[in-house]
């Protein structure tokens, strides 16, 4: 088990290396540079800046130096916001995105699982079509529409919740819902499918033949197998949720990592882009590993493969 985890963790290194390489060259292919937009920069200042950030060196040299730094845990300075290094910016912004992401995840899981499992118990009836219609709507409505709609209804018209901000507990409700609902919709559909699949299995008939209550059949016999598709989805979903959503963070003025990332891309802040991409990639890899471990725990048959 421990050996397996170590082997998987070592496997992260080549993956991250490939991602770093692709992104490093890709962003340099994009037109424009980090300091193009600065006003009144004389050639001399520009040269000094480029020398300071090693942008005057040949590309391959920049690349190897960057990799060398990353291997030493240094993601470099931010071009655009030099008050902090990229690592410091991530450490500064990520907790906000993490908090928002976890709330969103909670919303997604609670809404999604309740809707999906309810729907699966009586397929093709009102209790199936009802939640599934909402799920479909949740998938179809983008969060840049849902967010403002919620603000309009709950904040501006009813005045129940703040329009934006990230300070008080009530600030966090609308962003969490806006972020979580599309994921809830996917989880609802996945859990419905998984539960339907498991509920049609022979061993569910066996469980009923034993005289178990319907609740026990569903919760003890079906749930563990039924949520497998959800667990598989949770890996990339969690990584996506906690690394911040540019849209949601912008709608609600939340100082998270998502807006930082998009801002960096717009400003050609090379080190910032690379740093956040590598951070995001590492999280996805990590959560996929966690998912595999969770699946092995859920399904004993997987453990032997």
């Amino acid at each position, binding site marked *: 088990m421990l050996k397996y985890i170590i082997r998987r963790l070592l496997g992260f290194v080549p993956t991250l290396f490939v991602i770093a390489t692709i992104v490093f060259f890709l962003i340099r292919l994009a037109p424009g540079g980090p300091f193009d937009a600065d006003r009144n920069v004389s050639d001399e200042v520009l040269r000094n800046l480029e020398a300071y950030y090693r942008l005057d060196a040949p590309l391959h040299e920049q690349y190897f130096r960057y990799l060398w730094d990353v291997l030493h845990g240094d993601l470099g300075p931010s071009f655009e916001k030099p008050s902090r290094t990229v690592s410091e910016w991530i450490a500064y912004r990520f907790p906000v995105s993490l908090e928002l992401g976890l709330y969103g995840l909670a919303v997604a899981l609670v809404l999604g699982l309740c809707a999906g499992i309810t729907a699966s118990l009586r397929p093709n009836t009102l209790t199936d079509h009802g939640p599934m219609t909402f799920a479909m709507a949740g998938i179809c409505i983008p969060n840049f529409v849902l967010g403002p709609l919620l603000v309009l209804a709950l904040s501006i018209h009813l005045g129940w919740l703040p329009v934006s901000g990230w300070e008080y507990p009530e600030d966090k409700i609308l962003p969490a819902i806006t972020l979580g609902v599309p994921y809830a919709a996917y989880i609802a559909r996945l859990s419905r499918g998984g539960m339907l699949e498991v509920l049609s299995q022979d061993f569910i008939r066996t469980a009923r033949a034993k005289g178990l*209550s319907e609740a026990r059949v569903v919760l003890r016999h079906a749930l563990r197998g039924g949520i497998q598709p959800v667990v598989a989805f949770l890996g990339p979903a969690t990584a996506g949720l906690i690394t911040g959503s540019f849209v949601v963070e912008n709608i609600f003025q939340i100082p998270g990592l998502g807006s930082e990332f998009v801002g960096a891309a717009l400003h050609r802040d090379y080190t910032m882009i690379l740093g956040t991409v590598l951070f995001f990639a590492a999280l996805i890899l990590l959560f996929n590993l966690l998912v595999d471990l969770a699946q092995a725990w859920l399904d004993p048959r997987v453990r032997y493969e």
Partner: protein
Amino acid sequence: MPLLDVHELTTHFHTREGVVRAVNGVSFRVEPGETIGIVGESGSGKTVASLSLLGLIPAPPGRIENGTALFDGVDLLACGPKTLRSIRGRAISMIFQDPMTALNPFMRVGDQLMEPLQVHRGLSRREARTRAEEMLRLVGIQDGARNLSAWPHEFSGGMRQRVMIAMALITRPHLLIADEPTTALDVTIQAQILELLARLQRELGMAVILITHDLGVVARVCRRIYVMYAGQVMESAATEALFAQPRHPYTEALLQSLPSTHVKGEPLHTIPGLPPDLIAPIAGCPFAPRCASATDRCTRGAPTLRELVPGRATACFRVQDGEL
């Protein structure tokens, strides 16, 4: 008084293609402690009939249209889900055809085995565990403690069927419904499982309904046999009587189709044609189109099961009239 008295059980499936008349007015009796066999081809309704008794047919589309099934003074078809749940797994247990899929792959063998005791008897985990170990030993699985914490996929098919049997019998039910319990197993294991069932039946004094398409199996363990075809009982008789002198052309044809009664080198005997489509209404005797002795009358009116001598009934006009 019979332990189970099923009368005119009728189960239909209301599908998009039409109404599938899976079980049409089936009646049978089980005395305490006896083993009866229900024999028929696939699709003859034998499994649906037994699942209907325990309220286990998927509904919708399945619906029990008619009938009574008195068990211990309770009508299983009318008593409601709560009462039925308290009977299932306690007084009536069931084992299924495919032990590879009938056990929950996500639960340890012990947890599944102990469940009926915890639910019906309110036993604690520890008490249930002791009983489960005893039960495993009874079905021939040694080293109970270790096997209780095993997962189903670590067991062979024969072992799993033993676990299924242990799970069904752990509450000492009065009636066991065994639906093709040996069909999915190797021939050598089949004999072992049948012997095990027969031994446990004697030791625990329960009644058994053995559902199978295998005439060899029923001949070995059943006292009485009901032959089903197209959702109806064609003939019922004591086992020896049925094999010695079948009183329905369908039973006769079935017996002739047994490879063991067959002369080596000759082509195997088969019944021409196919079982009827259960969606289309059947006017006469369902077997008439394939029956060598059928007359006009057989396609016009439907025969009902009628007793010839006590304990022996047939649903054939011509036998009832003494023509065959």
